[in-house]
């Protein structure tokens, strides 16, 4: 007797996501049902100064195969088990993004499976929703490259407030470097500032710049840095003051968006989400507006491959695939330029 043909050879389908927009190279694997099977990464740490895009890209290309291998091994999957390859298509640093995109194209072509280009910022929101269970939040996304307040309305994530110049994480990082703090593996510069700030008491007067729904941080950075060199303020007090001013500004803008949209959930994500002081400020405004406050767990709040994999699943399930000839990276791909068909 002939065996019946196997149906549904694979019980579950999987998407592998590649994140490489800045200093982290991450690979995550998500099932189509939203189970994260692996979330591996390796970070480029500059010897001095900020991220050098070329050096970051060089780092990514050197460790890509190792991270890929780690992720597949950790998930207990073989390349053939994958159904979709997703990658961070933007926004971000060109050389870094291109490295990830190249790996993604190679994998998708070799395995003959579809490729899905994912917007990095949207991926942050989607993994945050998956991991915290919120459904329709006002999101504050604060990292080294991004500072924005977004909420979903009519098919897209709309930007209700953003920085007019530098990002919050960038502001803290540059200040930390000017203060002579060093980036160490496992201890981001922002965490070093936070630790010092917790020992600060005296509020140094700095510029507070909220313009309508938007904010500006470059003047704050310049002013805080100037105090560093001229006055002999305690570094602890300066770190404290910088945090208080910068966080108050983003909190005010988030509160405006919350009052305006009347949503019932606040989601905090991005690398700066790890900061306890920022968390406490946002939980206060959430409480005052009867909204639920959620922080994305740090593994999924910093740049990570799992968020790209999961958003790739959402997009793919809604018929979105990226043909090879449209898979070029988009360095300035705004969140409000992307249709989001998987909501409603």
């Amino acid at each position: 007797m002939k065996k019946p043909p196997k149906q549904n050879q694979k019980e579950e389908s999987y998407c592998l996501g590649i994140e490489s927009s800045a200093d982290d190279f991450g690979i995550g694997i998500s099932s189509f049902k939203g189970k994260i099977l692996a979330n591996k990464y390796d970070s480029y740490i500059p010897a001095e100064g900020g991220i050098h895009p070329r050096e970051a890209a060089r780092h990514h290309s050197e460790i890509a195969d190792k991270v890929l291998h780690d992720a597949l091994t950790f998930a207990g999957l073989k390349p053939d088990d994958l159904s979709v390859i997703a990658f961070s298509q933007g926004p971000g640093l060109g050389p870094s993004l291109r490295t990830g995109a190249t790996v993604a194209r190679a994998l998708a072509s070799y395995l003959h499976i579809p490729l899905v280009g994912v917007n990095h910022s949207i991926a942050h929101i989607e993994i945050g929703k998956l991991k915290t269970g919120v459904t329709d939040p006002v999101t504050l996304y604060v990292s080294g490259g991004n500072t924005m307040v977004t909420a979903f309305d009519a098919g897209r994530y709309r930007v209700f407030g953003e920085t007019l110049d530098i990002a919050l994480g960038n502001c803290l990082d540059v200040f930390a470097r000017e203060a002579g703090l060093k980036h160490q593996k496992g201890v981001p510069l922002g965490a070093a500032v936070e630790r010092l700030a917790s020992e600060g008491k005296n509020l140094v007067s700095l510029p507070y710049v909220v313009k309508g729904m938007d904010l500006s941080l470059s003047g704050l950075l310049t002013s805080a840095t100037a105090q560093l060199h001229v006055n002999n303020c305690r570094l602890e007090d300066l770190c404290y003051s910088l945090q208080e001013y910068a966080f108050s500004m983003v909190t005010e803008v988030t509160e405006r968006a919350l009052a305006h949209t009347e949503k019932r959930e606040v989601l905090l994500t991005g690398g700066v989400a790890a900061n306890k002081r920022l968390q406490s400020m946002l939980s206060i405004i959430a409480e005052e507006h009867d909204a639920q406050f959620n922080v994305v767990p740090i593994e999924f709040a910093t740049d990570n491959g799992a968020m790209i994999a999961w958003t790739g699943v959402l997009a793919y399930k809604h018929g979105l695939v990226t043909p090879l000839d449209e898979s070029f990276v988009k360095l300035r791909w705004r969140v409000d330029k992307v249709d989001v068909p998987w909501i409603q």
Partner: protein
Amino acid sequence: MDTVTEKTLFKKGAEASLYAANWHGRKVVVKIRIPKRYRPEAMDKQIRSYRTVHEPQLMHEAKVAEVPTPLIYMVNISEASITMEFVEGQQIKQLLNRTTPDKRKEICTLIGELVGKLHRHGLIHGDLTTSNMILSPEGKIFFVDFGLGEKNVEVEAQGVDLHLMKRALQSTHYLFWEECFKAVQYGYSSVLGAETAEKVYEKIKEIERRGRYVEERKQ
């Protein structure tokens, strides 16, 4: 003097609570900037009293510039409150998406003219959203909420002001924002003259390029 009666909360904004009340037989709005627990007390007090003092000053200046704003009756710095005229009418935010294209164009042109008058007079509103504009029954548009405003004659400040107007239209009236902003520019140019207005539009482009993720930004 400061007997405000029948105070009822009608709007809890992000920054302030607005109460409808009765003051010597007049219907008034009492705007109270509530203390914000999230920021240090000293910073909070400074921000709230600064905005409470400056807002009425700017509203007065706006009247001089022929831009309708509510009359100010009373200011209390220690409780960060302003008592002002209650303007009857409809919020532009509520009506802009529902009205006819012609009416929309007319309203936006008028808004542009008013912004032009503010700027010509050296005033920056600081929060030009359609929630901060009220269309009165006699067809005047009142500007409210000057809390983030300033006196400034620089093209930079004017550019940011108008850029915020554009951003507000994009986020709240995304279906019509382009035609709306075009009409705003039309009204704005008619007050300031094409040459001056063009400098501000150029500045808007420059400001947008400064943002992180914008197509137009130079590499």
